């Protein structure tokens, strides 16, 4: 196949999965997963450990052959035209795969020259990426001496060396401190603004919330929910205001005070805690001011957003990480397999 000098603009979905199935022996890791990601948008693949996120990404990036079904990246089929897929996408796997014995810059050069970039382009892009990921100072240091977070950032930089139109990131912020995480999020947003299509897996609802246009929740290899972050959160219950009172005897007074500002209040006397459903931060601030002016002493006052756990609880009726299968009456064979394991 020839390399199109003037590629016909492809306008279809940047990523498509069509009934992807992956079995390892008896175990079904990915079970009939289908979705499409429009160009320039972000899909978050959300799920607990062992849900099949990595396996799905590996199939879509030609690293693992689907047991059945197929996927297309930028319109190219992963099975019949894997090389075209590899030319169109970048991948950062779950574990950092940068070369420890090369410097950051050399790692970029390694991948850049395998992509066939010219030396000049490579230098320019490397400088830009090192800067962008705040590792410019360490660019000439051997990766062995990098911290975990620096490695991770280099790993991401390396996968951007050829500015792929489609980017797969498998748990990109695992191991990053909060600041790097936020920085990475904004970098990713810039990429998306430039027209890059992004598929990222994560275990954190917040991350999907921050970045994704659409979220797919997977568990036991199956898609169990799909929607925009807002839709998912609506389905998993609203945010809650949680107040912890310092002295048990003030609990009743606090409850009365709170009740006059919100719709309903739940009391947990043992934990000296009051919980109330709220819309967002504005409500929290309002309530905080009220308590500031009262005599009641508080240990804590804060907003509790629905966590992945809450989404899971809501969607599956069980905790995300739970081992015991309990009462999944008509569970699919795959799910049973996984639970038994």
């Amino acid at each position: 196949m020839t390399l199109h000098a003037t590629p016909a603009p492809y306008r279809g979905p940047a990523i498509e999965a069509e009934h992807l199935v992956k079995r390892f022996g008896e175990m079904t890791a990915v079970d009939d997963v289908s979705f499409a990601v429009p160009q320039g948008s972000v899909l978050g693949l959300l799920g607990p450990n062992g849900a099949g996120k990595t396996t799905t990404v590996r199939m879509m990036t030609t690293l693992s052959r689907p047991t059945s079904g197929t996927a297309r990246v930028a319109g190219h089929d992963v099975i019949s035209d894997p090389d075209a897929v590899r030319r169109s996408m970048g991948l950062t796997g779950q574990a950092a795969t940068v070369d420890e014995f090369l410097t950051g810059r050399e790692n970029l050069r390694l991948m850049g020259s395998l992509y066939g970039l010219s030396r000049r382009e490579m230098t320019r892009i490397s400088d830009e990426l090192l800067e962008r990921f705040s590792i410019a100072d360490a660019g000439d240091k051997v990766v062995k001496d990098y911290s975990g977070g620096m490695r991770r950032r280099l790993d991401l930089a390396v996968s951007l060396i050829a500015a792929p139109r489609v980017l797969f990131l498998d748990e990109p912020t695992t191991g990053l401190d909060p600041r790097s995480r936020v920085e990475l999020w904004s970098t990713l947003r810039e990429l998306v603004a430039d027209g890059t299509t992004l598929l990222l897996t994560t275990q954190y609802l917040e991350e999907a919330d921050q970045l994704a246009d659409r979220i797919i929740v997977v568990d036991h290899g199956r898609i169990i929910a799909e929607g925009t972050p807002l839709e998912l959160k609506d389905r998993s219950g609203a945010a809650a205001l949680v107040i912890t009172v310092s002295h048990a005897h003030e609990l009743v007074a606090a409850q009365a005070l709170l009740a006059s500002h919100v719709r309903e209040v739940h009391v947990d006397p043992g934990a000296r805690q009051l919980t109330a459903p709220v819309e967002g931060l504005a409500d929290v601030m309002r309530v905080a001011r009220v308590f500031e002016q009262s005599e009641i002493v508080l240990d804590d006052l804060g907003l509790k957003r629905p966590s992945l756990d809450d989404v899971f609880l809501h969607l599956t009726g069980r905790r995300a990480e739970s081992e015991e299968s309990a009462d999944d009456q008509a569970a699919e064979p795959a799910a049973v397999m996984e639970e038994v394991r």
Partner: protein
Amino acid sequence: MTSTIGTTAPAPAARPIVTPPGLASQVRTHVWRNVKHIRRMPEMLADVTFQPVMFVVLFAYVFGGSINAGVNYREWLLPGIMAQTMTFSCFVVAVGLTNDLNKGVIDRFRSLPISRASVLMGRSISSLIHSSIGIVVMAGTGLVIGWRIHEGFTRAVLGFALLLLFGFAMIWFGILAGSALKTVEAVQGVMFTAVFPLTFLADTFAPAANMSPAWLRTVAEWNPISSLVRAIRELWGNAAPLAPDSALPLHHPVESTIIWSVALTLVLAPLSIRAFNRRTSD
């Protein structure tokens, strides 16, 4: 973040054109990486520098006096150690490959639009470079302790070429071991319990003709390493007269070395490629 879904996709930004380089260029890049490793960790070369030099010293000065090779033992010994060094190139490949497999580096390469063979070819060539450094060190050490090549330039070069040819065959064994075994420790285990003894059970450090019982001598004489050593000794004028009752390969060592190397490659190459493919597909 605000959703842009539904609106037209933004105009793609200028992106560098990905024109995957030719195979030779890919291989060169892999070799570049591996040579960088050697430069960053010169201790990687211990197996082709300190270790064989130690053997030279041990055998030339400690055991040499009690080994009767029929000629100047030091001159006779040196081709043996060179052959051993070359045999160990399989070890270099296997360790490098296992490391890359375990660290996900191979997966990263597999996600690029490059030839899968380029990774293995890069490893092989780097490993031959690695072993050749060892050969140069050995030659230097040999010259110091009195080893000389007594024949002409062509025969000298032919000797080195045979070493490389055999090293090439050994590399396939390295790819096989590196792909089939899961950890560097396992690779080291196999190398030290299987390959290491095999380099001694040959006409390398002590004459195979003196080995007993008879079956042991037969095994040693049919060992491909013995053919290689005999071939370069003859080419360089370091050989002792051959015992008339020696096994057939030693009567035609150059031809045997070529046949052994080709045969080993023909058997090991498909096996090792299959093992590598199996390891990298799940």
